[in-house]
C-alpha cells in the first residue's frame, strides 16, 4: 500500500465518516429504540439525551459529503446517482427526524413527534444501510459512467449489510443510553445491549466473510504477504473490541460499553476497507480505484492545506460543546 495524496484523503474522510457513524449512528439507534418504547418518561430521556448534540453529530454527514464531493468527485457522482433511491430515502428520513425533534419541543402532542422522530431515524438508518450495501455489493461502472439500473442495490448482499448497519446503530444507541440514563431505564437497557451486540457481531462476521468470498482480490490478501499483516491484525483487533464490549456490559460499566462499541465499529470498518483496497467502488469486473475517483492533484493539496488548519480548530470547539453538555439526563 504505497502512499498517495488520494489515499490520505480517503483516510481523512473515512475518519470523519466513522466519527459520523458512531456519533449520529447512536442517535439513530436511540431513535429506533424510541419507536419501540412504551413509556412517555423513557422517550423523554431518550430524546433529551440527544437534544443538545444530535445536530452537531448530523453535521458530520454534511462535512463528509462536502469533502467527498471535493476530493472524489467521480465517486460522489456515481455513488449517489446509482443509489438514488436509498440516497433520497436517507434525506427524507433525516428531514423528518430533524423536524420531529424540533417540533417535539413546541408541540403538545409529544407522543406523535416522538414517534415521528423514531420513524425518521429508522428510515434514515435503513437507507444508510442500503447505501453502504449498494456500494459494497458493487456498482457497475463503465468508462466513468454508471451503467446499471436504479434498483441494482436491491440484492441479498446489500440487505445483509443494511441489517448489520441498523443492528449496529441500535447497539450504539443502547450503549449510549447506558451512559446517559440511570435507574430503571439503565437497568433495562443492559440486557438489550448484550442481545444487540451479539446480533451485530454475528451479522458483521457473516458480512465480512461474504465480502471476502465475493471479491477475489480481498480473499487473496489472506494468502499473500505483506497484505496478510494488514488485514489479519485489523480483523483480530475488531474481534477483540467485541470481547471487551461484552466484558464491560456484563460488568455493568457505564462508559466503557460505548467506548468499546465505537472501537469495534472502527476496527471492523478498517478491516473491511483494507480488504477492499485499492478499489473505491468495488466491482468484480470493472472496479473504480481510489486514484481514478480522486480530484486533481492541485485540488487535493489545496483542500489538504485548508482542512489541515481547520481540523484542530473543529476538534477543539466540538470537544468544548460536548463537555458543556456532559452528564446524566433525568426524566
Amino acid at each position, binding site marked *: 500500500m504505497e502512499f498517495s495524496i488520494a489515499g490520505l484523503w480517503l483516510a481523512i474522510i473515512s475518519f470523519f465518516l466513522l466519527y459520523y457513524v458512531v456519533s449520529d449512528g447512536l442517535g439513530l439507534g436511540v431513535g429506533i429504540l424510541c419507536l419501540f418504547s412504551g413509556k412517555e418518561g423513557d422517550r423523554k430521556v431518550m430524546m433529551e439525551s440527544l*437534544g*443538545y*448534540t444530535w*445536530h*452537531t453529530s*448530523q*453535521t*458530520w*454527514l*454534511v*462535512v463528509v*459529503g*462536502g*469533502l*467527498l*464531493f*471535493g*476530493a472524489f*468527485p*467521480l465517486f*460522489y*457522482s*456515481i455513488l*449517489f*446517482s446509482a443509489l*438514488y433511491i436509498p*440516497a*433520497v430515502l436517507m*434525506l*427524507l428520513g*433525516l*428531514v*423528518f*427526524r*430533524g*423536524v420531529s*425533534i*424540533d*417540533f417535539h419541543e*413546541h408541540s403538545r402532542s409529544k407522543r406523535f413527534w416522538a414517534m415521528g422522530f423514531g420513524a425518521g431515524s429508522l428510515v434514515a438508518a435503513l437507507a444508510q444501510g442500503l447505501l453502504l450495501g449498494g456500494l459494497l455489493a458493487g456498482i457497475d461502472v463503465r468508462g*466513468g*459512467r*454508471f451503467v446499471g439500473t*436504479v434498483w441494482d442495490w436491491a440484492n441479498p448482499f446489500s440487505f445483509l449489510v443494511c441489517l448489520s448497519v441498523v443492528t449496529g446503530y441500535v447497539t450504539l444507541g443502547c450503549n449510549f443510553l447506558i451512559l446517559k440514563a440511570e435507574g430503571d431505564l439503565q437497568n433495562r437497557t443492559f440486557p438489550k445491549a448484550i442481545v444487540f451486540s451479539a446480533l451485530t457481531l454475528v451479522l458483521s462476521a457473516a458480512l465480512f466473510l461474504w465480502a471476502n468470498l465475493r471479491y477475489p482480490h480481498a480473499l487473496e490478501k489472506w494468502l499473500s504477504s505483506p497484505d496478510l499483516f494488514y488485514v489479519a491484525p485489523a480483523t483480530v483487533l475488531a474481534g477483540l473490541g467485541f470481547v471487551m464490549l461484552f466484558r464491560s456490559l456484563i460488568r455493568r460499566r457505564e462508559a466503557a460499553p460505548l467506548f468499546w462499541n465505537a472501537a469495534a465499529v472502527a476496527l471492523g470498518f478498517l478491516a473491511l476497507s483494507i480488504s477492499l483496497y485499492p478499489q473505491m467502488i468495488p466491482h468484480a469486473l470493472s472496479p473504480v480505484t481510489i486514484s481514478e475517483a480522486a*480530484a*486533481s492533484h*492541485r*485540488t487535493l493539496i*489545496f*483542500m489538504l492545506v*485548508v*482542512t489541515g488548519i*481547520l481540523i484542530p480548530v*473543529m476538534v477543539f*470547539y*466540538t470537544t*468544548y*460543546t460536548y463537555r*458543556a*453538555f456532559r452528564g446524566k439526563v433525568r426524566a
Partner: protein
Amino acid sequence: METLFDHVMLSRLQFAFTAMFHILWPVLTIGLSLFIVLMEVMWLRSRNEVYFRQARFWTRLFILNFAVGVVSGIPMEFQFGTNWSGFSETGGDIFGHLLGFEATMAFMLEAAFMGIMVWGWKRVSPPMHLFATSMVALGSSLSAFWIMTANAWMQTPAGGIFDKGRFVAASNFGPIFNSDMPWAVSHMWVACLEVTVFVVGGISAWYLFRGRKVNFFLKSFKAVVIAAILITPLQIYLGDGSGRMVAETQPTKLGAMESHWRTNPPGEGASWNLVAWPNRSKQDNDWAITIPNGLSLLITRSLTGQVKGLRDFPKEDQPPILLPFYSFRIMMGLGFLFFFLTLWTLWAWRKGRLKSAVVSGQKKLLFSWMAAVPLSYLAVETGWIAREVGRQPWIIYGVMRTSEAASPLPAYTVGSSLLIFAGIYTVLFILFLLFAWYIVYKGPEALE
C-alpha cells in the same frame, strides 16, 4: 412534449423546488443570529433586562427556523450527486471543494455552538454565551460566503481548465475570486439582513398594531428601522452592481432579464422595457412599454452605451425569457418599495408618531410592515429565479450545458422523488407556520 417531463426537466424542477424551499430559512438564520448577538451585547453593556428578554424571545423563533433550514439544506448538498452526476463529475473538482470548505469552515462552526446558544444559558457564563452566539452568526455568514462563491463560480467560471473531460482547478484562488463573487456574496448577505429587518419589524409591528407589549416591541421595531436606513439603499446599490456585472459577464442573462433583443447601433441608446411580452420565435417583443435610452443609462451610465441583445446569440444559447424578465421586475420593484417604506417610517418617527402612547394608531404604517414580511421573502425568491433561470441553458455558464449535467435516471424515479419532496415540504411549511404563530402569539416570557 417529451422535453417537459424528461429526467432533465424533472431534476431541474426538483432542484428548483427544494432550493426555493431551502432558501426561506437560512436568510433569517443569518440575519437573526446577528440581531441576537446585538441584543446580547446591549444586555452585557447595559444590564437592562429588556435586552435579555429580547435575546430569549427571538432565539425561540430562531431555533425553529434554524432546524428547518438545516434539514432542508442537507438534500441540497446531496442532490448534486443524486440528480446532477454529470455536473459533479465534470465540475466537482472545483465546485465540490468549495462546498467542502463550506461544511468544514462554516457549517460545523454554526452547528457546534448552536447547542450552547439555545440550551446553554445555564451551563456557561453570559460572555461565553455571547461568544457562542457570535460563532453561530459567524458560521452562518461564512456559510453564505462559500455557497454564494460556489454559485457565483457557476455564473462566471474562473480558474478552471479542461483535462480528460473534467473541468479541473488551474489555480487555488482563481475559482474563489471569480468576477461575480463579490457582488453575489454581498447582494445575498444584505438580502438576509433585509429579510430579517422585515421579519423582526413585521412581528413587532403586529404587536404594536394590537397595542400588546408596546414597550418591548417598540425597542425591536426601532432597532430594525435604524438598520433599514442603511440596508435598504445599500441593497439597491448592490443590486445595480450585480446587474452591471451580469451585463459584462453573462449577456444572454441580461438580455433575458430585460427582454432586450437587438444590440443598439453606435450613437443610439438601448431602451428599457418597463413591461413587455417576449416572443421567442419572432426573436422580438410582441409589445412593450419602453423608456428610451433607459437600458443604456442603467448599464453603461451613458445615453448611448452599447448593450448586447439576445439576437447576437444563437437560439440554443438563449435562456427562457418570460420568467427572468418578470421575476427581476418583481424583485427590483420590491427593493424600491422597502426603501420607501423605510423613508415613510423615518418621517413618522420624526413627527413623533412612534411614541409608545400613539404608535398603535399608525395602522397603515404598521400594516405595511406586516405585509413586508412575505414580500421580503418574495424578493429573495424572485431574485434567485432571475439568477438561475437566466443562466440557462448553461449549468456552468459557457462551459457545461444543464442538459449534459443531469444524472441519466428514469423519469419516473425523479418524478416520484419530486412528488414526495413536494408533499413533505408542504406539510413542513404548514407546521412551521403553526409553531411559529404559536411562539409569536405567546410573546416574550416574563423573567424567571
